[in-house]
């Protein structure tokens, strides 16, 4: 007999070692995430995947499923927390969706729609984060960084280059590149790197492909992020 836990009252089967998030998605239930990626170990920083398991809040991406657990995810309480976390990410950076090349392909924006973020709610931080346009093929717009570290991990673990790292602490944490000049052009970064093609938001943008797909026909214009994620999971 396979093991199972209850997600919002519905049974979800799992195998030993599977996390709550993996098992839920495999069974066709959406739990949101930004920093999680199937090709990497769980990171657990964005906290969008927060669920209540046996009465305690945990990150679904980093928590192994347990037999008989009762897990709450799609509830007003948890979804309210997710909405708040999205609002926090949106006021922390400088996000101008209408002028952003990533609009419609951006996971943060898509989750904003999914969880009905209608207002910023909190005061904007308006951080000063200059862009880096030095590289011939790629533009870095740090204003939109959400610190998921996917580029850091991809560059280090897949590309073997460690082009990116985080420095600073707390609210002053920020992304830097692997060069004394601080310029991407002075690194060995290439547009074909995995790290160049993994940003869930609009920090790492390829030059000369701006708006190739018109607004209205983009990824999350065609399907919501939950629909898309579950469809990819089942294919």
């Amino acid at each position, binding site marked *: 007999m396979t093991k199972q836990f209850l997600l919002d009252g519905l049974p979800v089967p799992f195998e030993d070692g599977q996390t709550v998030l993996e098992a839920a998605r495999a069974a066709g239930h959406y739990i949101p995430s930004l920093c999680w990626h199937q090709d990497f170990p769980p990171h657990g920083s964005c906290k969008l995947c927060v669920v209540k398991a046996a009465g305690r809040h945990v990150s679904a991406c980093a928590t192994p499923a347990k037999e008989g657990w009762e897990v709450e995810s799609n509830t007003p309480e948890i979804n309210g*927390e997710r909405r708040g976390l999205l609002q926090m990410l949106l006021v922390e950076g400088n996000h101008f969706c209408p002028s952003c090349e990533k609009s419609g392909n951006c996971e943060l924006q898509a989750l904003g729609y999914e969880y009905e973020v209608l207002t910023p709610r909190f005061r904007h931080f308006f951080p000063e984060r200059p862009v880096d346009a030095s590289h011939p093929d790629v533009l870095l717009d740090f204003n939109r960084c959400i610190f998921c570290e996917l580029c850091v991990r991809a560059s280090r673990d897949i590309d073997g280059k460690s082009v990116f790292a985080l420095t600073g602490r*707390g609210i002053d944490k920020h992304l830097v590149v692997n060069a004394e000049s601080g310029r991407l052009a002075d690194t060995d970064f290439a547009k074909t790197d995995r790290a160049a093609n993994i940003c869930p938001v609009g920090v790492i943008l390829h030059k000369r492909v701006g708006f190739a797909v018109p607004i209205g026909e983009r990824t999350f214009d065609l399907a919501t992020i939950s629909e898309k994620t579950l469809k990819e999971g089942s294919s």
Partner: protein
Amino acid sequence: MSALPSDESAALDGILQRHRHDPTRLLQILIDAQDIAGWLPAPVLTRIAAGLDIPRARVEGVAGFYSFLYTRPVGRYRVLFSDNITDRMLGNAELLDALCRKLWIEPGKMSEDGLVSVTTTSCTGLCDQGPAMLVNGQAIGQLNHRRINEIAEMIRQQRPLELWPAEFFQVDDNIRLKGALLGLEMAPGEALKAAIARGPEGWLAEMQASNLRGRGGAGFATAVKWASARNAPGELKVIVCNADEGEPGTFKDRVLLNRYADLVFEGMSLAAWAVGAGEGFVYLRGEYRYLRPQLEAVLARRREAGLLGKNILGQPGFDFDIQIHLGAGAYVCGEESALIESLEGKRGTPRIRPPFPVIKGYLGRPTVVNNVETLAKTCLVALHGGADFAATGTAQSAGTKLISISGDCAMPGIYEYPFGAQISRILEDCGASDTQAIQVGGASGICLASYEFQRRIAYEDVPTAGAFMIFDGTRDLFEVARAFIHFFAHESCGFCTPCRVGTSLLKGFMDKLADGHGAKADLNDIDWIDRLLKNASHCGLGSASPNPVIDTLQKFRPAYERRLVSLDFEPAFDLDAALAEARQLTARNDPGAHLKTHEEEEK
């Protein structure tokens, strides 16, 4: 790559060599490298990265994480005022202003000649003799205007620190009440001999009987931790002494390390004997760097006496040694998994758990992380047996607890009480009167109002890592909470969204109230952020960060409510404050340069 001057380059090579070009020594290398020029210029980071064969970005990542590492120039005299609430109550802000005025500088900005910079830092652990500061890492307590005048003069004369009056650097232990631990007189090695005689299993059984629990605050059973590490797979095991005493208002470990270092090191050896560990680290907070030379001397003496090294006390195969690892100004490194990351030369970001450090800790090895006080107390267990230890205290909290008392009382200092001691008795002993509230356990602890003073210090009632800050009737509990929220916002590692953004938002709301722009809607938002921080944070720092606000909102709500200007909503944007820069540029501060006065006049 920009070139380094040849003498700096040679010094850097020496440092890299001394640390065997080992990337796990990165933080130690950065601390040493900073001593060359007082800060870490970009080429130095590049050179270190090359020397360790690691990406430069990683070096920059680590250098940017720790408050005491500077990637921009700072003054040759770096003055850091301790900014705990107890320092504030003793007037540190006024002293900081006075010093800045005398030196013609702005707080947080280096003087134009590069001579001096003055700013604040988190609690430096001298709350019993504040207001306090660190000058180039050396602690000075009992600041007053006379001392500040002298300091300003000596900085202006560029007098080297070694030639400053020795009494400036005198740090008192202030031991006020001795119990089993502070009264213990033990020849080095005595406890170890007793434990060796019992054998590792017998010694562990004795520890189990003692019911000793972690003194760092969490209260986990020490014997269980040791047994888990002992049974964990892996040949190499590690004992870490957590001397990153960063919790504001706590200074008991400072005193233990200063006067009872032998007990602490002996405790580490006792842990090693039980666990079968060969390697020990003391993670010493950067603020206590001045203790390092004397600690090294004690370690050397113990090596000579055969209490560290190979075949300890003639016991074949009992090999264990201890090295000191410095922190560099990061409260979060008191969290054990963040501490281990820092030990490995990384940013102090807490790990995902499980696996727990006792299974996979330092470099993946089974690692025991124990508090300074916990380790010292194991000596009592070894000497007198577990049952004897468990006979003091309460059923769930065995033994005694060191309390660091500061704030509004006649005799601040260190007090050792059996667990179960009543708050009211402690207040009486230290000469506190008209006490309005106490913050027990530091910023992350619990705020007690006067109707709770019959409660007791114990894991099952009022747990504490040792801080005990007293506030009398003249103090404003809102300002106390605001100071602690500023602390957490400054110390958040920034890894998870709720803590990184939430602590800063909370700070913003508290400042909004303090500035007289508060509204009832703000209290609702504060409530909401408090709950999110508690629920969704990645580690204990985030989940404890709203505690001061939660407690004071519940127990001292009027302190908040009298700051509200509206029952509904009041914008955070302050039009008049936005003109501050224009006023500074035009050197105007007359009523006409202020928006509100201007409007009022028109009316």
